[in-house]
């Protein structure tokens, strides 16, 4: 089914169409959530919320953007909300550990025990990069994740985040400037 027909069936609340939507986009949504939350269980919870939200809002989807853009938008917003909720719960539980997903945690766990001369494994490098990205402000982080890992164009990112292309360029520019010093510092210390 092409996207136009799928949207038409979704407006009619066709269960088979919704299943097709899930089959086509669940991996995409799950990976975006996982990139943003760095946790499989949280990513699954958010994926669930995204599709439930999509189901409730099907009649409001006007097909002015692609289905993927719409789902990306819901996934990003839900992931950010989920993160804020977790922070709030930790704060209320008087858990002020700030090392989760932070640069400091990489120092605790990221050191290569084979010694400074050992070649750093790819997954260590990825962890360094992901940790540095996680320490960015929400909007910069979102733009960078969508650009680097989801390979979205500036236009698509602007559609997902509801901003202009110029804003996306500015966010990516600032993100990369901040990241440069973080990555250099981390690489030296580990």
């Amino acid at each position, binding site marked *: 089914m092409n996207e136009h027909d799928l949207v038409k069936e979704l407006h009619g609340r066709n269960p088979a169409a919704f299943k097709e939507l899930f089959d086509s986009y669940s991996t995409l949504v799950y990976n975006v959530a996982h990139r943003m939350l760095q946790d499989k269980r949280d990513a*699954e919870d958010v994926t*669930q919320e995204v599709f*439930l939200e999509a189901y*409730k809002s099907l009649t409001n989807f006007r097909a002015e953007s692609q289905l993927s853009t719409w789902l990306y938008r819901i996934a990003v917003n839900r992931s950010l909300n989920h993160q804020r909720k977790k922070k709030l719960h930790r*704060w209320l539980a008087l858990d002020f550990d700030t090392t989760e997903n932070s640069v400091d945690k990489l120092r605790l766990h990221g050191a290569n025990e084979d010694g400074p001369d050992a070649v750093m494994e790819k997954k260590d490098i990825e962890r360094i990069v992901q940790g540095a990205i996680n320490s960015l402000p929400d909007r910069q982080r979102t733009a960078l994740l969508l650009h680097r890992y989801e390979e979205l164009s500036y236009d698509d990112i602007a559609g997902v985040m509801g901003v202009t292309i110029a804003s996306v360029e500015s966010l990516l*520019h600032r993100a990369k400037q901040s990241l*440069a*010093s973080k990555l250099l510092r981390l690489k030296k210390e580990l």
Partner: protein
Amino acid sequence: MHTRIQEKLLLYVDGNLPAEQMQRIRAHLSVCSACAQQHDLLVSVWGSEIRREKLQPSPFLWTRIQAHIGEYERTPAFVWGFKRAVREIMLRPFAVPAAIAAIFVGVYLGTPHEPQRYERAQSVSHGVGAVDEFGLDQFDVLPPGALGSTLVNVSHTQK
């Protein structure tokens, strides 16, 4: 100078700078070993191959979504609207401070703040005026040890 160059190194690695800046940084890297080393470090970290294989969600995810949809269909619309509104409000940055402030205001309003009236009531009840105030002359003298006997008997004695 070096800090400003190093800030732009990631943009340089990705080719996200105007041609003039790219040329200037290239020229600087050819003469500055410190910045060239930083550049090489960044290339090894940022330029390494990105994991592009997609993770797969749990095979039971669809079943869970169907269950939630079923629950949604059975629940009246206004309940979902209310839950969503509460969730949206609680995620606002001001929600927690506002809730804490509301608790303090409630405690303050619920605490009595007029000790003068309480003390005045005490002095009235223990003084001569108590007999007239409370009509204590209508009551018989209470035996010693009875509840309130001190107050009533004092009043009678004073009278």
